[in-house]
């Protein structure tokens, strides 16, 4: 699963020159990426629904005494591409993109009646090929059968059964790759004509004693509930609801542990570092700022556990099926919902997932909507703000109010994304025809523990990396901007600052820092929302990554009260104006901030990916613009509303 947590196109450095290249080609969800990972030792995203892989991934493996290049490709049912991800495969086969030396055709052994036609069309390209049969465990479990060696004779190419998780098949494949020169090819290419192809398929399968598997009984039972018009919807909402309760109930104590750790670290640092400014830097920028983001690791990890389970079980395809009608109201189709659901991790994989949509219009509409879905970067911001707003033990009936509000924020993101998608498709209504919607519904799988663990591990790692790179750099820069220029005692005296008070002096420095001037410069824009320059600077800096907002507040708070950052934030006062002396984070300001972060496109990586996927700056500019306008408006409305009722 996503190893590229908000970092598009992480590809390992591989030298291609002089090495043999093998491409993995097959129907969607046939286990290509799983096999690719087993062969290459990498961990590209896998999942039990069609359309997980949407771009080419490179890897390598040693066979015999040479190294070969492996290409994991998107899955496709057809070689008449109708979507960009399928086009990748067609380009590889037709040599538009450098053709591989050999092809590893990967087919799910439980669906051979369907996929042999695809195999036939691939073989007609006359590129040396072998066939790997996956899901042989499923075939056996469901009472099916295939004679691989008879199949091999009938097809004229080598056939290797390989079930995921078994070393034997992988070793056999490696050995076969080493014998590339002596691969057999079909005596006569399979027929092209549809009727003859059906006859060929029938003949080949009967020669291979193919016994198709029985329908999966477990899947039928689960679907009877999960796809039931009433129970299915109910179960879905209950599960989601429980999840958001868990985020606070389970993750919060873990978060406290991490906070305790940082407090301890801070005390140690304080004792060890005697240089004044360095001590301040460590406790404010590093521990308060960067550490303030890092404490959200448990929430992030939990979120990815849930995503891994959704993706690994086979529920994603069902979600697309259930939501297709709703999506159709927005002018889209079920697969667009998969993109939106993927955006819960991060908008970037969500935007990339639109490559599996046949219609260009649908792709654009989905891309415009995806950044509105609550991504994992918003999670720390929401949790912090909701924490400021509501007491931990406050309940509404049996429910934790913090969890309720968080659930509401996710709902808001989903609903507004759908609205935007609907508007976007309306605006480009000219080509009214719908391309076919079809979605394979794979049997349920128990998400493999190893896959879940590695997905969560990868995402947690990516989060830590993000925190220690972009967030750290931004925070350090911000610390400098907040603490400079330094003021001399004389200067402060002249300005009438009480030079006997440490707090007053640092407040003066802060208030006259470079950062303050930036924050004050944008004040006219945000003043109507009740934000002062300290919040503004948080918003401006969060353009680098949303979490920086948390780091900035953490930093400011740590400067005031390093031991109790949350209390410090709660105690922050409005500095001037009519409300001077009132708490800065009043309910109306928090409501405005929640709305602002829900709608604003505060993520430059997303802007970059939109540029890449649409090929122009036009769409990212539109997305950034409309989202800012909506964000401001919604924040203003929310603030006014809260002020009205409180």
């Amino acid at each position, binding site marked *: 699963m996503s190893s590229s947590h908000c970092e598009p196109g992480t590809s390992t450095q591989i030298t291609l020159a002089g090495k043999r290249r093998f491409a993995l080609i097959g129907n969607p969800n046939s286990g290509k990426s799983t096999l690719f990972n087993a062969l290459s030792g990498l961990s590209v995203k896998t999942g039990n629904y069609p359309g997980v892989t949407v771009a080419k991934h490179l890897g390598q493996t040693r066979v015999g005494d040479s190294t070969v290049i492996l290409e994991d490709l998107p899955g496709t049912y057809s070689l008449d591409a109708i979507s960009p991800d399928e086009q990748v495969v067609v380009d590889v086969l037709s040599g538009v993109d450098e053709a591989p030396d050999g092809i590893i055709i990967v087919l799910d052994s439980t669906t051979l009646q369907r996929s042999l036609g695809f195999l036939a069309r691939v073989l007609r390209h006359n590129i040396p090929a072998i066939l790997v049969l996956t899901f042989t465990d499923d075939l056996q479990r469901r009472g099916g059968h295939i004679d691989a*060696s008879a199949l091999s*004779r*009938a097809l*004229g190419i080598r056939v290797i059964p390989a079930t995921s998780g078994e070393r034997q098949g992988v070793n056999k494949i490696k050995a076969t790759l080493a014998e590339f020169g002596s691969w*057999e090819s*079909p*005596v*006569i*290419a*399979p*027929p092209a*004509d*549809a*009727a*003859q192809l*059906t*006859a*060929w398929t*029938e*003949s*080949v399968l*009967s*020669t291979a004693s193919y016994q198709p598997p029985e329908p999966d009984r477990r899947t039928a039972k689960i679907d009877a509930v999960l796809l039931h018009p009433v129970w299915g919807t109910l179960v879905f909402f209950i599960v989601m609801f429980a999840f958001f309760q868990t985020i606070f109930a389970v993750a919060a104590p873990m978060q406290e542990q991490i906070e305790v750790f940082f407090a301890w670290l801070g005390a140690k640092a304080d004792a060890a570092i005697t240089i004044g400014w360095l001590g301040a830097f460590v406790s404010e920028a590093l521990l308060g700022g960067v550490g303030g983001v890092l404490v959200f690791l448990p929430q992030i990890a939990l979120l990815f556990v849930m995503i891994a389970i959704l993706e690994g079980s086979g529920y994603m395809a069902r979600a697309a099926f259930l939501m297709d009608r709703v999506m159709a109201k927005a002018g889209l189709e079920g697969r667009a919902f998969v993109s939106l659901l993927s955006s819960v991790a991060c908008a970037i994989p969500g935007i990339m997932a639109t490559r599996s949509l046949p219609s260009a219009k649908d792709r654009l509409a989905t891309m415009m909507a995806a950044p509105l879905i609550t991504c994992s970067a918003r999670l720390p911001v929401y949790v912090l703000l909701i924490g400021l707003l509501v007491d931990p033990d406050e309940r509404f009936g049996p429910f934790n109010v913090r969890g309720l509000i968080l659930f509401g924020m996710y709902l808001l993101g989903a609903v507004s994304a759908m609205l935007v998608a609907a508007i976007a498709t309306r605006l480009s209504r000219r080509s009214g025809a719908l391309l076919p919607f079809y979605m394979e519904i794979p049997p349920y799988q128990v998400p493999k523990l190893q896959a879940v663990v590695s997905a969560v591990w990868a995402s947690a790692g990516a989060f830590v990396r993000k925190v220690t790179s972009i967030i750290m750099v931004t925070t350090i820069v911000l610390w400098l901007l907040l603490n400079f220029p330094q003021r001399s005692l004389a200067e402060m005296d002249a300005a009438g600052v009480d030079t006997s008070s440490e707090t007053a002096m640092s407040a003066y420095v802060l208030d006259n820092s470079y950062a303050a001037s930036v924050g004050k410069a944008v004040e006219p824009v945000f003043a109507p929302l009740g934000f002062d320059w300290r919040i503004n600077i948080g918003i401006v800096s969060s353009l680098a990554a949303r979490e920086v907002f948390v780091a900035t507040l953490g930093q400011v708070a740590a400067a005031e009260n390093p031991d109790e950052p949350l209390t410090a934030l709660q105690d922050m006062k409005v500095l001037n104006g009519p409300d001077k002396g009132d708490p800065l984070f009043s309910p109306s300001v928090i409501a405005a901030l929640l709305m602002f972060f829900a709608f604003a496109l505060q993520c430059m990586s997303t802007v970059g990916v939109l540029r890449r996927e649409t090929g122009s700056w036009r769409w990212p500019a539109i997305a950034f613009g409309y989202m800012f306008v909506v964000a401001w408006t919604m924040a203003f409305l929310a603030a006014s509303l809260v002020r009205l009722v409180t």
Partner: protein
Amino acid sequence: MSATVTSIAIHPERVASNSSIIRWVIPAGTLPVGLPIGFPSPLAQFFTDRVLTAGLVEDSAVWLWIHPDESWSTQGPAVREALVEALAAPDHWVIEPCDDAVLRHVAQDVLAGPVGDVIRSHGGDAALSSVNGNVVEVEFSGACSHCPAISFTLHNRLEKEIRARHPHLERVVSA
């Protein structure tokens, strides 16, 4: 095209010993077993043109020999279509029953196939020595010939596989 909704199910397979032969696997019992001497029209033309030189019919396959100057990869698709059409008219074939010849080819093919592979992987070998009536005589040599257990299972498997393709087989004997 889609008018021929039910095309007869066939596919080509190699014959290990000889690259000029293709074994077209067909539904069992479509044609009587033997050596064909007359073919229905589109297929007959290939013999007239000396593209194809000989044929043989086993229970669920038709063997066709191509002229050494021709190649299966170019002629194959056309032959396939002609064969499918010919199979739709089984009455128009003239086939001489000749169990011995058919059985010899089948037995040789089986020995060159997976069963033979097993024998060879054990350091042994098996060769066809003769076909008499419906009795196949096989000569085992090398490692296998000394191991009664292995030769027993192999012998059984060999017999089973040949019988699957040639139901008239009586038995396999070791020379």
